[in-house]
């Protein structure tokens, strides 16, 4: 416990300097996912105005901005989850692996295996830890018991949860703590071997220690993937992300290297936001 607390205090202390963790990782220029002039409407309400952004492999991109600025709406467009909301319409191109996925013909089900998503509230199923992980792979056709077992171990290791739960895989996921549940949800996503993982305020329901564990995890996950995180927490954005995009009232106002965004904001609105003029 004290060890973890020390670690926490340590990382809080270094967060100001910015990006201690992310510097160890090699970034690449390979664009995995890109948005081209994406507009989102809820009925008549124009919630997101023409947004264009690239997401690179090996990088974490943070989407920040005040509540209702369109950052979550944008995130949910990237794996076409907005299609599940009645009355929601997404226009523009979303390019994944060089082809536009925002078409009626796109196979949503295959796509969402490649672009995983982790939600604000940990939302494991009322099943065992094991079942939580193999549920989706099984439904996607993987039935070999040995392969499934291996997948469970791999995914849990990937989510840094294996050591904590390896002896109780048949126990209910609801018996885990909030932070463990969230890591289980990440493991569940990893089991589908995604290229991109979208995090929608993944730590807002967690305590500081669990938050740091998730941040560490994101850092290691980003080695081979593109990670996109929506967060309300400025410290978190500056700690984990390579690039940051600032959204305000449905517009993507400023985008750049995280250090530049936080230390030399160009736009007045971003500056006001960072200095706490509004939230």
């Amino acid at each position, binding site marked *: 416990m004290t060890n973890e607390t020390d670690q926490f205090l340590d990382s809080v202390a270094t967060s100001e300097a910015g990006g201690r963790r992310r510097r160890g990782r090699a970034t690449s220029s390979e664009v995995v996912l890109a948005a081209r002039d994406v507009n989102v409407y809820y009925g008549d309400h124009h919630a997101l105005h023409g947004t264009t952004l690239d997401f690179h492999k090996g990088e974490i991109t943070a989407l920040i901005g005040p509540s209702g600025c369109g950052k979550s709406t944008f995130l949910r467009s990237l794996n076409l989850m907005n299609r*599940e909301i009645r009355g929601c319409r997404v226009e523009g191109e979303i390019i994944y692996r060089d082809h536009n996925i925002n078409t009626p013909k796109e196979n949503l089900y295959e796509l969402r295996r490649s672009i995983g998503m982790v939600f604000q509230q940990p939302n494991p199923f009322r099943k065992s830890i094991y079942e939580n992980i193999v549920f989706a792979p099984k439904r996607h056709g993987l039935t070999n018991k040995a392969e499934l077992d291996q997948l469970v171990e791999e995914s849990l290791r990937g989510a840094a949860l294996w050591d904590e739960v390896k002896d109780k895989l048949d126990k*209910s996921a609801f018996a885990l703590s909030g932070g463990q549940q969230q890591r289980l949800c990440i493991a569940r996503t990893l089991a589908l071997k995604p290229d991109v993982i979208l995090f929608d305020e993944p730590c807002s329901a967690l305590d500081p220690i669990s938050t740091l564990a998730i941040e560490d995890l994101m850092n290691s996950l980003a080695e081979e993937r593109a990670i996109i995180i929506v967060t309300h927490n400025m410290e978190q954005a500056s700690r984990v992300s390579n690039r940051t995009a600032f959204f305000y009232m449905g517009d993507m106002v400023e985008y750049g290297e995280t250090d530049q965004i936080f230390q030399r904001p160009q736009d007045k609105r971003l500056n006001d936001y960072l200095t706490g003029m509004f939230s």
Partner: protein
Amino acid sequence: MPNTQAAPVASAESAQDAHIKRAGMQDKLATGVLTAIVALVMLLVVSMIAYILFQGIGMLFKPGFLTEAARSNGTEGGVAYQLFDSFYMLFLTLIISVPISLGGAVFLVEYAPDGPVTTIASTAIETLSSLPSIVVGMFGFLVFSVNLGWKYSIISGAVALTMFNIPILVRVIQQALEDVPQSQRDACLAMGLTRWEATIHVLIPAAMPAIVTGVVLSAGRVFGEAAALLFTSGMSSPVRLNFTTLNFSSPTCAWNVFRPGESLAVHIYKIYGEGSPQAQEIVWGTAALLMICVLLFNILARIVGKALARRMTAE
């Protein structure tokens, strides 16, 4: 001068005091009246149930009442066949109505697009739920008994009861599904699963305690329904039923769904006006039996629902 000025202030103050006092009195009075009303209602419910059980419980222990067939058009003998017919019709009703209601509720909660289709469907279900059961019974009579030629039969009765039961069940299941957190749905969809898989493997299991409770409670309602049965299953059971034969077309085969049948509730309606003391004993015995069954459904619904919920959270 100061005196004349003070006087109205004082009287205003005392008027205000009186007002506050009156308000306080009103409050006490209202509380008293409401308490009395509630006491009266509770007394009414308890005494009604006690009265029926008191009047009929003796009959239940009388040899033959639960095991013998009715004689002399129901005024003598027992109610064994009525008891069987009630459960048999209930069973058939649930077999038909649960899957349809489940499908309907899933459509309305998970799939239904906004628009005229959904509006028409939910209005139709609402209409069905508010129709008097006698109208449902008459429709059943016209379509199943007359037009389809099923005459007075168990199956006609069960289908009429199905129509009566579906709106109740759809509403219960709809509610149960809506109560499952949206995040469970999102989790499935975000992993590339279909709404269908989410429903079958996650949402319905999560809603199961509420669904089971609702189904059992609705079973209690179906069990006591009579008006929809008068013209569909008829007002008499065959004189002899054979439970061992598997010749389903035989009119005396108990399992033949095309034979007439009579539920306990219809039986009460049929003979309640008979003057003989024997018939009166049977009426009250039947009423007590019906009440006990309905109470059991009620208790069962709560116990099973709670047990399922506990098992789910304990895992």
